[in-house]
């Protein structure tokens, strides 16, 4: 479990151990920031594809109607 480094912890466990804890916390926050960036980029890309993409689907369920009328439509 990750713990936030504090002065109390540093004073109790000594400077060496407090440095290790701080390092772990920094790594954890970097990973958190990276994952946050990935999520945001994915959301923006998804929104762009959704709005701008040619995602129309051809009709697949239906039937054929004979063309008729003056304009054959």
């Amino acid at each position, binding site marked *: 479990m990750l713990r936030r480094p504090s002065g109390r912890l540093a004073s109790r466990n000594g400077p060496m151990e407090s440095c290790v804890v701080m390092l772990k916390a920094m790594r954890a926050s970097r990973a958190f920031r990276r994952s946050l960036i990935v999520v945001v980029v994915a959301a923006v890309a998804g929104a762009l594809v959704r709005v701008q993409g*040619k995602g*129309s*689907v*051809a*009709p*697949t*369920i*239906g*039937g*054929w*109607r*004979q*063309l008729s009328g*003056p*304009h*054959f*439509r």
Partner: protein
Amino acid sequence: MSTVLLVGVGALGARAGRQLGATRGIDRILVADRRADRAEALRKFLGAKAETVEWSARRPLPPGVDAVACALPAGDDVPLVIAALESGVPIATSGDNQESIATLLRLNDEALASGVAVLAGCGLAPGLSDVLAAHAATLLDTVDEIHVSRAGVAGPDSEASMRRLHSERPHEVIGGALNEVRRRSTHELIWFPEPVGDKECELIGAGVALLHKSFPSAARITVRAVEPEPRSTGWFRRNDPGDNWGATRVEVWGRIGNARVPVIYGSVGRTATIGGAVLGVATALLVGALPEIGGAQPGVTGLAGCVVPEAFLAELDRRGITASKFEGVPVA
């Protein structure tokens, strides 16, 4: 008074001859075929309007001909088109061979210089499919994609041509440019009008170049077709494949305002009958017998480039060839 030279009286050519015989404004039909018995049979059917002629592409066209209807096997039509260009006579040809259509398109400058109209690919697909694509395009503001599918062959020569098309590397338009496809894609299941129904179709190159010329704005154009049955089952097949059903399906994508929508048209019938009717009506267009269906300009083009689609479809409808529209809902 208009005179038409009909060359080739096979499965499709015989039907085209009957259609020409039933067209007002065409008074004389010269029938030429390497088999005299077939030409004579059609002459007897058409009566006083028709006469047989002994003619080959190496000779100049018979005098007094106003237009040529070519129903020769795919590839054999090129010498005939060259002879027609030299004589200054417009010609409609039903050939669906990828290479021969490409050769005809390369003759465009000669056709323009001699002021002769050459209508290439006047059959089921290419042919009626081009007209349906043009008709669909009238419903759209812009055309993005055209996907044509075809099932059925008109006769033994048409079957051989289709077999060859399936063995060649197809062409398709990708990104607005005509390209040779290096790797053939897998089969695609296409729903044609009944009774043909669903068939597996494979990419071929027949008519792609003609559609590309008629719809230069389309970024993607493909043509697919059902592969004929293997020869090993020949004993169990009917003698005349032209009696089999044929169909075409044309899916055109484009925009109406901001919305991107498809328009899907199709037609079904006896393949030779449809092809013959299309060739007959296209030849009638060339001689001006049916001015309401369009007018051909000098140069080599497909039907989409010179017809009034709804008038052409109305003329086919009068001859028993109907078209349909697929109406349905998308299921993602």
